[in-house]
């Protein structure tokens, strides 16, 4: 018996025992509560069918597919450039970051490498999407547990980052800017300075969140010790990103499996937290947002000059082969397994999205918690519906 199922069973038994004690006295029936598919906390169309005893959850089973768009199938009928625009829409908050692993995987098969300037700008945009994405989480987590204001701060300050992304790529959410062999265009004049000032604002935003939520005793009471995920369980379920690091696993693909972007050129650190609870997940993401602004700052200083496009044929045909490449996206490890048969388009694309794995732990982690904790845990696991359903 593995550690996972051991713990799972223990948690279940203890919750059952607690139920039994109550049931003997009151003999209450269970109630099924469908949280979603239209529910503010699921920010999208996820449904969680909870079996409740009073306010205590006995089982929670996520039901999804309300937004399944079949991207793996759609990629098969598209050419490589056409795929890029599609996969923009998987994790719509971390837009640019979606494109990068796909393009890198295709580049790996084609054995081309983007010039350094393109790699740096890619990294900058990648980190900017991370900031934009996580900023929304930092505010949204507040609204999940009842604080109204943080989410407005998040929208306010995320907008500045999105404007920066839009100024370069032309798209706020769907940049479609990454190309096999480089980038579509170079950065416009004056952008570096603007981005610097935006990064300062984002750090102020992080400070505000620290004062408004992290330090708040009510927030801590709601999040500490709620939804604890031990590291071995996290690994077994394939959790990734901040969810994994909040469980104390020191693993960041940017550092541990850098696919050639400029992360190794700058000085930064990976944040982990030993607790593995909802608070730890929030805290790690907060630190990561701040770290990302520092990464952007350093990268802005040292963009090398040169071309932004390697020599690639105008009509892109990727040689036959298979490649799996994943990067550390805002939500976690996003990877593309591309099978090519030398055609204009991929033969098969398997999209490994972070939220799918992250949410698959829900039935395990939600045993015996209260209804409000369901929301806290869902919020702190941080998923994007498009990223689960694809």
């Amino acid at each position: 018996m593995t550690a996972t199922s051991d713990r799972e069973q223990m948690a279940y038994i203890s919750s059952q025992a607690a139920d039994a004690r109550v049931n003997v006295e009151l003999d209450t029936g269970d109630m099924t509560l469908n949280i979603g598919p239209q529910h503010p906390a699921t920010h999208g169309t996820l449904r969680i069918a909870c079996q409740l005893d009073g306010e205590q959850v006995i089982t929670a089973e996520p039901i999804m597919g309300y937004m399944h768009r079949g991207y793996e199938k759609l990629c098969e009928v598209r050419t490589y450039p056409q795929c890029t625009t599609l996969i923009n829409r998987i994790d719509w908050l971390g837009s640019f970051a979606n494109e990068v692993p796909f393009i890198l995987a295709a580049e790996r098969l084609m054995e081309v490498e983007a010039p350094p300037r393109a790699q740096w700008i890619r990294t900058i945009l990648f980190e900017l999407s991370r900031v934009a994405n996580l900023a929304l989480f930092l505010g949204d987590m507040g609204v999940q547990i009842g604080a109204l204001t943080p989410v407005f701060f998040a929208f306010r300050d995320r907008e500045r980052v999105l404007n920066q992304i839009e100024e370069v790529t032309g798209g706020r959410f769907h940049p479609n800017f990454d190309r096999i062999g480089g980038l579509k265009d170079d950065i416009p004049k004056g952008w570096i300075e603007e981005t610097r000032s935006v990064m300062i604002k984002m750090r102020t935003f992080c400070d505000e969140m620290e004062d408004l939520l992290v330090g708040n005793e009510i927030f801590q009471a709601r999040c500490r010790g709620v939804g604890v995920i031990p590291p071995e369980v996290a690994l077994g379920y394939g959790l990734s990103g901040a969810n994994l690091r909040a469980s104390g696993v020191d693993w960041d693909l940017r550092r541990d499996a850098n696919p050639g972007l400029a992360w190794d050129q700058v000085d930064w650190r990976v944040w982990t937290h030993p607790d593995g609870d909802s608070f730890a997940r929030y805290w790690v993401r907060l630190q990561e947002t701040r770290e990302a602004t520092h990464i952007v700052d350093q990268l802005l200083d040292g963009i090398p000059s040169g071309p932004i496009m390697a020599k690639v044929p105008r009509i892109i045909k990727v040689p036959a082969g298979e490649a799996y490449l994943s990067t550390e996206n805002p939500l976690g490890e996003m990877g593309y397994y591309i099978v090519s048969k030398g055609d204009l388009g991929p033969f098969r694309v398997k999209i490994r999205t972070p939220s799918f794995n992250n949410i698959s732990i829900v039935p395990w982690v939600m045993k015996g918690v209260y209804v409000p904790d369901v929301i806290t845990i869902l919020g702190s696991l941080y998923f994007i519906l498009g990223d689960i359903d694809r």
Partner: protein
Amino acid sequence: MPQLPGLIKGLGVTAKTAGRTLFPKRGWKTLIPAPQKGAVTVQYPHEKEAPPERARGVIALHEENCTACMLCSRSCPDWCIYIEGHKVKAPPRREGGKPRTVNMLDRFDIDYALCMYCGICVEVCPFDALFWTPEYEYSEPRIADLLHDKDRLGEWMETVPDFLEYEAGSEQKVRKVPR
């Protein structure tokens, strides 16, 4: 210094923001409330936010440059560009030459109800006939009206902004918009 309780700090953050929104002015004007200036929201129908020049709002067609080569239509992931054309004879480029056969555009429709604003068509166009403009106000009550024909697409042409200059270190050439 002992830590302030988080509850009080939180109240401070919201109060500070309220103060900044209400009294954004500095100097002797500090006490004049000016929330219109302090708020970050844009009162949309009254004032409009200018999108960046590169924003992908709507596609403009420079008809003279289009040779009906079908490249954009073929590379469109959503199959939303419809082109029809016929060949005509054009006068030779220089004296004594032979008449040339050129493509004449009959129909160039983009269905914005289907378009996903990826910009592949603009990119693949080898003759500089398609351009992005940041205009965004073209919603229609009927979905069928989102199909813009070539005249409508041509009208957008005057809203196309000039291409931006690049940041130092770039080797890209700044392109020109045909006017």
